């Protein structure tokens, strides 16, 4: 009974929305909105086949490479800057500017500097994703409990082991918040870099469909992007739960007191 109820909560609204969509489109055919059945068949026809290999997987690869590189770069640079007060003060205004710069405007710049190739697309993704990770790492390192710092100093914990056992764990909750932002920015930039200058990839294909008025195919592309976004957010939540298990445990204890 209880599982039935939670299933109802989980699927109730999506089913209502699907039924409403089905009813609204089942009368006379609408040019802009395909019926659910039409969209499903188009989705399978369009994406399960050659396109999976030529467009979808390369796009996802570029996204993953870019985001992972940005995370590593952001954490390493963030540790270096966050641990040095002078360096932090020197870099703050410049970093603040780059964070405020809307990442898509860098697409034309990188097109000029790198050329139109896979490297440019990965560079675009890195250049947009690195800022939330970098700034959150700096913020996380800065806000470490001073008592903890003094404790590790008096125990003589320095250098790499201090970073590994004191600084990284304390900064992880803040860093994860940055990674979450980086993921959604990365997905946006993957699509934009392909819409701009490309002859393959998801973004390119979807724009192609739209230009040739292949409306159900275009919608099926939007669905693919949505599914990638949802999948990324689930993977992120799973990783976050593992990485921050100790932290959530701590919070529960604190809240219980």
């Amino acid at each position, binding site marked *: 009974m209880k599982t039935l109820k939670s299933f109802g909560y989980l699927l109730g609204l999506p089913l209502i929305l699907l039924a409403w969509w089905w009813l609204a489109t089942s009368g006379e055919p609408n040019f802009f909105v395909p019926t659910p059945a039409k969209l499903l068949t188009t989705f399978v026809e369009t994406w399960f086949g050659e396109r999976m290999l030529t467009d979808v997987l390369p796009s996802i690869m570029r996204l993953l490479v870019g985001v992972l590189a940005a995370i590593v770069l952001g954490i390493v640079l963030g540790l270096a800057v966050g641990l040095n007060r002078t360096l932090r003060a020197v870099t703050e205004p410049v970093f603040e500017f780059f964070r405020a710069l809307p990442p898509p405007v860098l697409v034309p710049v990188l097109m000029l500097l790198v050329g139109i190739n896979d490297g440019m697309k990965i560079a675009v993704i890195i250049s947009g994703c690195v800022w939330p990770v970098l700034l959150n790492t700096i913020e996380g390192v800065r806000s470490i409990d001073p008592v903890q710092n003094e404790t590790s100093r008096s125990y003589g914990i320095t250098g790499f082991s201090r970073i590994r056992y004191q600084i990284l764990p304390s900064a992880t909750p803040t860093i994860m918040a940055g990674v979450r932002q980086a993921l959604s920015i990365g997905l946006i930039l993957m699509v934009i870099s392909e819409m701009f200058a490309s002859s393959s990839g998801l973004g390119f294909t979807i724009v192609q469909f739209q230009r040739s008025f292949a409306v159900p195919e275009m919608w099926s592309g939007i669905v693919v992007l949505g599914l990638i976004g949802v999948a990324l*957010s689930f993977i992120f939540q799973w990783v976050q739960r593992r990485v921050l298990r100790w932290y959530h445990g701590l919070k529960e204890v604190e809240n219980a007191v």
Partner: protein
Amino acid sequence: MTQTTEQSTRAAVKAKASRVPSKGLPKWVLGLVGIVVFLGFWELMPALGVVQAKYLPPASEVIAALVTDLGLSAFWVAVGDTMAAWAIGLAIAVVAALVLGLVIGMSPFLRRFTNSSIEFLRPIPSVALIPLAVLLFGIKIESSLLLIVYACFWQVLIQVLYGVADVDNVAMQTARSYGFSYAQRVRDVVFPTMLPYLMTGIRLAASVALILAITAELLIGSPGLGKEIALAQSGGAISGMYALILATGFLGVGINAVTRVVEKRVLSWHPSVRGEATV
């Protein structure tokens, strides 16, 4: 007795806090040094032949182009178009998310009922809607608005839902037992608790709205700074393009600064901000 020791410790902490930054140069000088080093590096890159000057003009040339832009009315029209799309889109998203968030958040049933749909719809990237926007509205401001409203709506909605969930149960029950109506409960109990969360949502949404306004202009060609960047790039006016990119960066910095100030003003009564001011 305890109070005096506490006061003296606090004074000591305060003295320490104010002493530490004064070690060495003041902070703004260091920041200025950083900016100068960055600009110098940029100036030298094409001069030393690391990058060709036709791809990356020296900083002085770009800044000169930006100064020329500032005197042109076409530039200000583009800024106005971008800011109009930003403001209208943000306003629609905030109002819609606030109203829906309050209604959903106040009802435990609706919160559970809508959870799966919200978690599914939220991560869908707004740029996926670009083809749809082009198809529906063409190169008009409505295209930008569709993207901005979609992206910002989730940012604010999630924060409002967190905020409403944070309302103190005792306060809520007290209000109920005093016979507060629904509207009174929203105004006097829920709203003050939720306000810091709402302001965070608006601050995040404000920068997201700028990103999408520029993106829509760049890709769809609706009027604004993004369209000017695309035009400058395809026309080969490279230093003009860099100048426009600098301008969008300054717009972003300005929006961040203004939302920070507004947040502080609106929440001046709130412990989180009050604490910041005294220490």
